[in-house]
């Protein structure tokens, strides 16, 4: 028995306008989708070139979910996105060259080479760096919301988790605490149907993860994660509800992880037909068509955006490769914070 509300797709332009987006915003979203995918595609190339040490993860298939939610966040809101959520960093203003620098372990990446992959964020952009341990950032996101509630600020915190990580205790403790205190937090489940090689029925036995929201006293919503506008609309609703004191919402974005868990994984355990089926619903292609049908995106505009993104990313790769590897003299810097660090630029 499903309990969560299943969100409708976004249809007309007028609906979008109601949600607060004008044509320029829509093109901005499109651009961010392209940057998001572009960053990860180029990361993949860098990886194959041996320029990225360690492992490498992408969020292919999840770009619309990430960008849609990032776009719905207010400037003062904060969030802790995960390894499939590059789009959130991009929307919030993380410059792609810094992402590449982080991938490559360079001194100018946000972690200065201390951590890799998307285990990074810039707090000045309102984002908190994820740890690997899933979903340890959910209680942290709830704690941000608690701070807002204590100070009576009209800010909202967002916490992400995968459907696999939904099985862990931190998910429960975070949602339960947020529910009892009706804290201004929105939980986003990136449900991409696989947790590494593990299918959903071995991670949970309910129809939708979002059905669990009722167990915590708030609303759950299931949304098609390839529909950037539907994701945006639902996130906006949930965020504004939280801002107004309406408490948490759990939004489940349904997608398919379009690649292996990480580059080394060929995802042999995912039926090929599933990939083919979801490839037809590619979130970027889908939105491009929507833009053509609904706001008359022109060939010229399309090309211009594509060229612009291409240039941005080429520049970014160049700049990142110019960044040096960290000097070993920095090895022990910042294991402990100094009092002065408390006054570092912050969100």
């Amino acid at each position, binding site marked *: 028995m499903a309990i969560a509300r299943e969100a409708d797709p976004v249809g007309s332009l007028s609906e979008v306008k109601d949600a607060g987006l004008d044509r320029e915003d829509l093109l901005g979203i499109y651009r961010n989708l392209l940057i998001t995918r572009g960053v990860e595609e180029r990361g993949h190339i860098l990886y194959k070139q041996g320029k990225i040490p360690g492992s490498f993860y992408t969020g292919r298939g999840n770009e619309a979910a990430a960008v849609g939610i990032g776009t719905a966040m207010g400037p003062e809101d*904060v969030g802790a996105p995960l390894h499939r959520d590059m789009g959130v960093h991009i929307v919030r203003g993380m410059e792609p060259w810094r992402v590449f620098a982080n991938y490559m372990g360079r001194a100018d990446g*946000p*972690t*200065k080479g*201390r*951590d890799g992959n998307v*285990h*990074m*964020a810039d*707090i000045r952009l309102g984002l*908190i*760096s994820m*740890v*690997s*341990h899933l979903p*340890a*950032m*959910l*209680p*942290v*996101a*709830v*704690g*941000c*919301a*608690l*701070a*807002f*509630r*204590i*100070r009576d600020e009209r800010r909202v*915190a967002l916490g992400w988790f995968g459907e696999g990580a939904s099985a862990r*205790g*931190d998910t429960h*403790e*975070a949602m*339960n*605490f947020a529910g*009892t205190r009706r804290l201004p937090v929105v939980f986003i489940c990136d449900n991409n149907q696989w947790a590494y090689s593990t299918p959903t029925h071995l991670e949970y036995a309910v129809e939708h993860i979002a059905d669990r929201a009722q167990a915590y006293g708030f609303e759950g919503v299931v949304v098609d994660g390839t529909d950037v506008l539907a994701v945006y609309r639902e996130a906006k609703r949930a965020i504004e509800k939280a801002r107004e004191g309406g408490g948490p919402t759990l939004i489940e974005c349904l997608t398919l992880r379009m690649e292996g868990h990480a580059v080394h994984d060929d995802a042999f355990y995912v039926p090929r037909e599933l990939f083919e089926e979801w490839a037809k619903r590619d979130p970027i292609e889908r939105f491009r068509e929507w833009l053509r049908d609904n706001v008359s995106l022109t060939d010229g505009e399309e090309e211009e955006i594509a060229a612009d993104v291409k240039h941005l990313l080429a520049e970014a790769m160049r700049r990142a490769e110019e960044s040096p590897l960290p000097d070993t003299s920095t090895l022990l810097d*910042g*294991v*402990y*914070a*100094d*009092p002065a*660090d*408390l006054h*570092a630029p*912050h969100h």
Partner: protein
Amino acid sequence: MAELTYLQAISDGLRGEMRRDKRVFVIGEDVGVYGGAFKVTLGFQEEFGPWRVIDAPLAEAAIVGGCTGAALMGMRPVAEMQFSDFVSCAWDQLVTVAAKQHYRAGTPVPIVVRLPSGGGFSGGPFHSQNPESSFAHVPGLKCVCPATPADAKGLIASAIEDPNPVLFFEHKHLYRRIKGEVPDERYTVPIGKARLHREGDDVSVITWGAMVYTASEAADQLEGEGISVEIVDLRSVLPWDKPAVLESVRKTSKALVLHEDTHTGGFGAEIAATIAEEAFEDLDAPVRRISAPDAPVPFSPPLEKAFIPQVEDVARGLKALAEY
């Protein structure tokens, strides 16, 4: 100056910080209406309201993770574990998130976790532990273990001020048993600086927490026998005051490391290994360790007494060292 119990000193210190700094709030199980299992926050909710004295659900990971998030948003959270033993349920949040966040992301996590710890009253295996050794191995954390009321008050202020996650171990056996003069005004005691609890010439005892008093009694006994014992109260184990320890040992040339936690891999090993390495040429005897044996803390009084280091054990150890 007033004479306060160790518990009152913590309570006063914490209340003072909350009055002084609106960013400070406390959160934990039963800390509000009930005032905490040991009544450290008694009356706090009346004074500061339910959003600065937060009765949390029974969920240690949510409490500690919640503090981390609030700290990242500029608050100064102080969590209470009902007993230090239950911090095991927040181990991951402390070790994985709080401890490593500043190194990785450059974002300080100024949280304090208060941990009523230690045995001596038949609390059994789950209400008597001293988990500081486990955390003292985790870079990024600080571990504070005051022994006196004055240090307790000064260190709670320092812990709250500190830009890092600080675990504040308060020994339950000292709560109401130990009284001392505590300045009325606000002050801080630096984290990482030992206190010379007693001056002496023949043997140094390096210890902290309730064992400071066990060592003191043993030293009193030995004084009659003409053995002069110096007691260094570390006050914090991470960081720990290596210079003060080495100075004392270089003076006495003999060292006993004493703790209430179990032996193997206890933090005493770190101190003993360091002394043995860095004061090698100054030692006239091997560095001895006295600690609890490797077992859970037993409940029944005779077993617990046999488990926790007693004055006689320490006296015997000191005597053997003095005679070495």
